[in-house]
């Protein structure tokens, strides 16, 4: 099949440029003279924070957009000149998979086979292979819309593989998928690469990038680095450390403190410890390090993520004036930390550690389907409590019941000491809720949004002014006060949504998938902020499909298919993954827990159904 692509490169870009026009007339440079070389037969990852230009680059490669400058050759074809030829020869899975949800698995496959002109003989040979690879064999008659997220992803991939493409292009194929499906998808991709296929994929999971042969790092349309992941990892050589915490202490406090130090590039919880990366000039400050007193640190070999953070940090320092307002939330954050963490709101601090949310045997049916299936847990005051699970696990449904937005089919539900069956209104006074899609008024400015929510919660006079001031400073919105909220960058929208939900000083803050779609930088910044809120006495309940975010929680439950599979502290959860060694990740734990549950299900036969 590859007779025409004798060149060394599957993709060759020279000073590729793409600019978009915003509605305001402002030009945004999505790709700024990016030059790149992607070799045949290799797996190449495209990484970078949101707005880096990953999707734009992929769409240019697929001929879905034309570059404004430079040249881009895909399979030795100038894609701007002859997009159809490129589209005949490559396979592409967009972020939304591109499946027809009301067609069955087989019908989706047949459609793409027809479009690619795959003969019956080729299908007879190819389909069994695809079915075996994706394990979709038993579901060929099921409508694509009724598949789980992971299965949809595999079907989307299978549709691009109805014939052997010369290049496979995947845009964030693993986002929002449970760890098990993510692992399976990876095995398929690696198998294909082993057979000589060239693959370009964008990803926000840095551990995936580490396993690729080549990595391209983009930020704000600029190429920061390209090469083998080891080259990027090397950037952090001798800079990575692990800090061991006293037993049981949540890692987030130390992490939070470390992030405040401008000489620390990155700090993340990892397996109950805190991993951090030092910048230049760190040593000279080592003597005055209250946060590390009594804590043992040891040098560890760097990983890809450390090198990646070094790259971004260098870029931020070089481009400080241009990108300060949007692109460097972590750096911004450090300047202004005194505000929250130490001045605890008296109201919350005085209260004890009693149970504020009590869920007992909660069930929610949608017709025959149990979205939430006999779920029980408790949340104590001032905890950060996580509901973890892949898309479709029942997290959002549980959440909506907790917030009184959806009645429960059966079971008991007490929030802030109030029975949600009988006194929803009085419970609502004491909770704040940030929905997955932030409920902001895009035409109103930041100030107007906050004023509206203050009025909606019935605040007035001195108290109202105080809360408005608090929100502005706590969430660092002052500089953007007069910007319509619809024009805020993503991270700021989230801050504003949180500020709005906290206007009435609630005891409990509910956050539904706040980090979904956010890049690693924005996610670190977000957790830093949550830690500070928790220190002020707010109980935080949060859902996420990023398993490793459980490390930030005091306690978490792992939910799948409506059921709770495990709950406890991060250490207790991690203990499920004994097989994966001492540094087992939360993802290992999740996979181990799912496998345990399946094993038990197998033994109990239909009893659990």
């Amino acid at each position, binding site marked *: 099949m590859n007779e025409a692509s004798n060149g060394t490169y599957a993709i060759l870009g020279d000073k590729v440029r793409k600019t978009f026009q915003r509605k305001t007339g402002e030009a945004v440079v999505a790709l700024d003279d990016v030059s790149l070389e992607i070799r045949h037969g290799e797996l190449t990852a495209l990484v970078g924070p949101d707005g880096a230009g990953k999707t734009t680059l992929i769409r240019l490669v697929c*001929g*879905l957009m034309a570059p404004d400058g430079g040249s881009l050759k895909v399979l030795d074809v100038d894609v701007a000149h002859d997009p*159809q030829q490129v589209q*005949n020869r*490559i396979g592409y899975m967009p972020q939304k998979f591109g499946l027809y949800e009301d067609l069955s698995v087989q019908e989706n496959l*047949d459609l793409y086979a027809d*479009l690619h*002109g795959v003969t019956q003989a080729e299908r007879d040979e190819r389909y069994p292979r695809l079915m075996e690879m994706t394990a979709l064999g038993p579901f060929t008659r099921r409508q694509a819309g009724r598949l789980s997220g992971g299965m949809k992803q595999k079907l*989307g991939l299978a549709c691009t593989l109805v014939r052997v493409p010369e290049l496979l292009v995947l845009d964030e194929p693993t986002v929002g998928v449970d760890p098990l499906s993510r692992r399976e998808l990876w095995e398929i991709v690696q198998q294909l690469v082993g057979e000589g296929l060239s693959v370009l994929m964008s990803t926000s999971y840095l551990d995936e990038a580490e396993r690729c042969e080549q990595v391209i790092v983009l930020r704000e349309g600029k190429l920061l680095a390209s090469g083998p992941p080891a080259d990027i990892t090397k950037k952090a050589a001798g800079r990575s450390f692990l800090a061991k915490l006293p037993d049981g202490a949540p890692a987030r406090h130390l992490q939070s403190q470390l992030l405040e130090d401008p000489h620390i590039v990155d700090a993340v919880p990892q397996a109950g410890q805190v991993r951090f990366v030092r910048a230049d000039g760190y040593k000279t400050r080592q003597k005055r390090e209250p946060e590390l007193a009594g804590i043992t640190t040891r040098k560890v070999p760097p990983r890809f993520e450390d090198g990646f953070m070094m790259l971004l940090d260098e870029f931020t320092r070089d481009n400080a004036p241009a990108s300060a307002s949007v692109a460097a939330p972590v750096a911004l954050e450090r300047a202004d930390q005194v505000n929250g963490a130490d001045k605890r709101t008296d109201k919350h601090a005085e209260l004890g550690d009693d149970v504020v949310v009590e869920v007992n045997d909660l069930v929610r049916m949608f017709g025959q389907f149990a979205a939430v299936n006999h779920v029980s847990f408790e949340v104590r005051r001032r905890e950060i409590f996580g509901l973890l699970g892949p898309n479709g696990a029942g997290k959002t449904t549980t959440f909506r019941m907790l917030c009184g937005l959806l009645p429960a089919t059966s079971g008991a539900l007490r929030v802030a000491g109030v029975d949600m069956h009988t006194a929803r209104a009085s419970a609502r006074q004491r909770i704040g809720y940030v929905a997955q899609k932030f409920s902001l008024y895009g035409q109103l400015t930041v100030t107007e949004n906050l004023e509206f929510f203050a009025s909606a919660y019935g605040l007035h006079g001195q108290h109202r002014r105080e809360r408005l001031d608090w929100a502005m400073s706590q969430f660092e919105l002052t500089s953007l006060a007069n910007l319509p909220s619809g024009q805020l960058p993503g991270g700021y929208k989230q801050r504003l949504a949180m500020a709005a939900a906290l206007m009435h000083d609630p005891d409990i803050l509910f956050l539904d998938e706040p980090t979904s779609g956010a890049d690693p930088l924005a996610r670190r910044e977000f957790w830093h902020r949550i830690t500070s809120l928790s220190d002020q006495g707010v109980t935080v309940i949060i859902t996420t499909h990023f398993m490793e975010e459980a490390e930030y929680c005091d306690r978490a439950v792992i939910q799948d298919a409506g059921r709770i599979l495990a709950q406890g502290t991060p250490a207790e959860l991690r203990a499920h993954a004994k097989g994966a060694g001492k540094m087992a990740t939360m993802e290992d734990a999740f996979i181990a827990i799912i496998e345990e549950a399946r094993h038990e299900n197998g033994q109990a036969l239909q009893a659990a159904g």
Partner: protein
Amino acid sequence: MDHSPNRSDGKLRRTVALIVKESRQIIRDPSSIAIAVIMPTILILLFGYALSLDVKNVKVAVVLEDSSPTARDVASGFEMSPYFAPRYVMSMPYGEQLMRRGEVEGIIRFRSDFSSQLKRGAGEVQIVVNGIDANTARIIENYAQGVIGQWSQRRRAEGLPVAGAGPLVVQSRVWFNETGESRYFLVPGLIVLIMTLIGALLTALVVAREWERGTLEALFVTPVHADEILLGKIVPYFGLGVVGFALTVAAAEFLFEVPLRGSLWVLTFVSMLYLLVALGIGLVASSVTKSQFVASQVALIATLLPALMLSGFLFDIRSMPIALQYITYVLPARYFVTLLQTIFLAGDIWSVIVPNAAVLALMALIFMIVARVATQKKLA
């Protein structure tokens, strides 16, 4: 690098694959079925039955103060009439009471001296009608006069004295037909609405949905061509439009017995022309806006509302303000309504059909070309 040795063969196979895919989606998507089958059915029933300008089985109180055979003979005319459901009462006060309670719509009163006055040649029947709904009141009044008029005619033919004045008989005939003539123009006019719903609104929705769900993005990166994607949409929705057309014509002919004075093939031909125009508008709206909400608003405002208000379907164009009259010339529905009314009620009048059909054909061509230009395998 030509993967398909026979290019036209691949083109056909891809187009057929897209048509099959779209047809499966239509069958499985409840909203397509709702717009293509349920809405036309509701419209047919609504316009055919509920929106009739005729009245039947009106409840009236018949006050027989005169119990002579003559009075009873006149009153029995109300019993025979399909328009009235009479109820005999003994006194006027009771009749008035029934009227106030809303149990009857009118009172037909025969005074105690009815038959004696009739003998003198000046018989009088009092008709009292509930005037709250002026329109209905008028109809009832006229029907009642009609009933009495019929009786008078019969009497006159027999050479006997007559009740009331002669001209009554004529009046009721002028205003109201005994059959529901309003259906004669409402039901054919429905073809415009149904073609517009399926052609413009439904098509705009389904194409925009593919943009929103990202399915087109995946489709673009295959050997498929833009014209194949377009054909894959036009053919199934054209088919669906034909079903809606057949449904309406069948309802017009068999359910409401609207006469079709022109020929069926001319009717079918011009309807297909209009369907192509509507499809073209739907395709352009969705390709340009790429959003279901905006595309459906555009289709609604640009096609459905004008088809209802400005096409001459409900309101006569000649009675509109001049400026509006000019606007109607750019509306394809105007030409189609003219064609429908001519073919149904007048016949194959070529001097009307040819120019109007030519305008529709030209519009269909223009919109199809614009749709082809607007459908590019590009995202931005």
